[in-house]
């Protein structure tokens, strides 16, 4: 196998976990197979692994139960936060286009905290639950961007993506974390719930946004039960 061919096989083998990649590439080097057969072998192993993952319910719930709906709701929250920011700090450019309510500065800060907490938690839970299949959840998140229509003509379209860096950060932490710290999860759950109740009482929380609370309480329950990542996929 030439250097270019072997380089391609090594590149594709990055789909596998580190130990498995080590063993498989070693086996292929020993067998001295041609490039095409080696590529088929590596891809075959990868897709068999994916098949095993998707027989479990967790990647399905992570993708369709958390990633997809959270993405849609968080796009709305991002637009709402941006609209409130423009109204409070740049009123001459503000054109009411988003039903953001009449939040003052305190509720604005509350919304920022909630956006951060919701985004990070959703990313964390999706990655923690479906490590091997997190890329599917990421692809599912593209659908709201493509099909959802938000009336934000006077706002930059990029404002819809405000939650994305936070969700990606949460996902990175979810991929690297073995156990959730109970004190942190408890404090987060209490803080998020308290702020959501405050926002709700002030008429500054959409009903559907209550759906964003469940990953927060899942983390709390997982931390209390000391669920290790081995019980996730």
């Amino acid at each position, binding site marked *: 196998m030439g250097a270019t061919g072997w380089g391609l096989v090594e590149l594709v083998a990055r789909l596998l976990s580190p130990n498995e990649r080590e063993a498989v*590439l070693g*086996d*292929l*080097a020993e067998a001295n197979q041609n490039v095409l057969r080696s590529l088929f072998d590596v891809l075959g*192993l990868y897709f068999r692994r994916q098949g095993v993952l998707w027989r479990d319910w967790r990647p399905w719930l992570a993708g369709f139960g958390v990633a997809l709906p959270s993405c849609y709701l968080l796009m709305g929250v991002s637009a709402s936060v941006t609209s409130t920011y423009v109204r409070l700090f740049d009123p001459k450019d503000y054109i009411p286009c988003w039903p953001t309510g009449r939040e003052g500065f305190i509720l604005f800060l509350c919304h920022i905290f909630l956006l951060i907490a919701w985004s990070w938690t959703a990313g964390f839970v999706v990655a923690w639950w479906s490590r091997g299949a997190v890329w599917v959840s990421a692809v599912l998140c593209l659908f709201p961007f493509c099909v959802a229509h938000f009336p934000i003509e006077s706002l930059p379209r990029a404002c819809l993506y405000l939650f994305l860096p936070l969700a990606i950060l949460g996902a990175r932490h979810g991929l690297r974390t073995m156990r959730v710290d109970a004190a942190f999860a408890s404090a987060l759950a209490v803080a998020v719930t308290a702020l959501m109740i405050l926002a709700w009482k002030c008429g500054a929380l959409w009903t559907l946004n209550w759906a964003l609370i469940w990953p927060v309480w899942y983390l709390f329950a997982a931390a209390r039960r000391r669920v290790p990542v081995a019980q996730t996929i």
Partner: protein
Amino acid sequence: MLGEFEYLLITAAAALGDDAYGAAIREEIQSATGHRCSIGALYTTIDRLETKGLVKTWMGEATPERGGRSKRMVRVTPKGVHAAKEFYSAITRISQGVSWVAH
């Protein structure tokens, strides 16, 4: 009971003894069956057997033939030996008297 490929893998690993690792097991199966053994089938079956407690695996030493990469060593557990014996006994019992078995 074991599946046929699981039996082939356990038997190959048992025959290889301390030299049982991915590539060697694969070669052994290919020699015995005359058919190609895909790496995907091999490693997913090894994982399945390990989950059932029929084999134990660990990362072994790297060798120059393998481009300096480690091997995944395989050892059959006593439970795996028992499962293989069961499969072999069942095959032997059911094959008695059939035309393709030499008497």
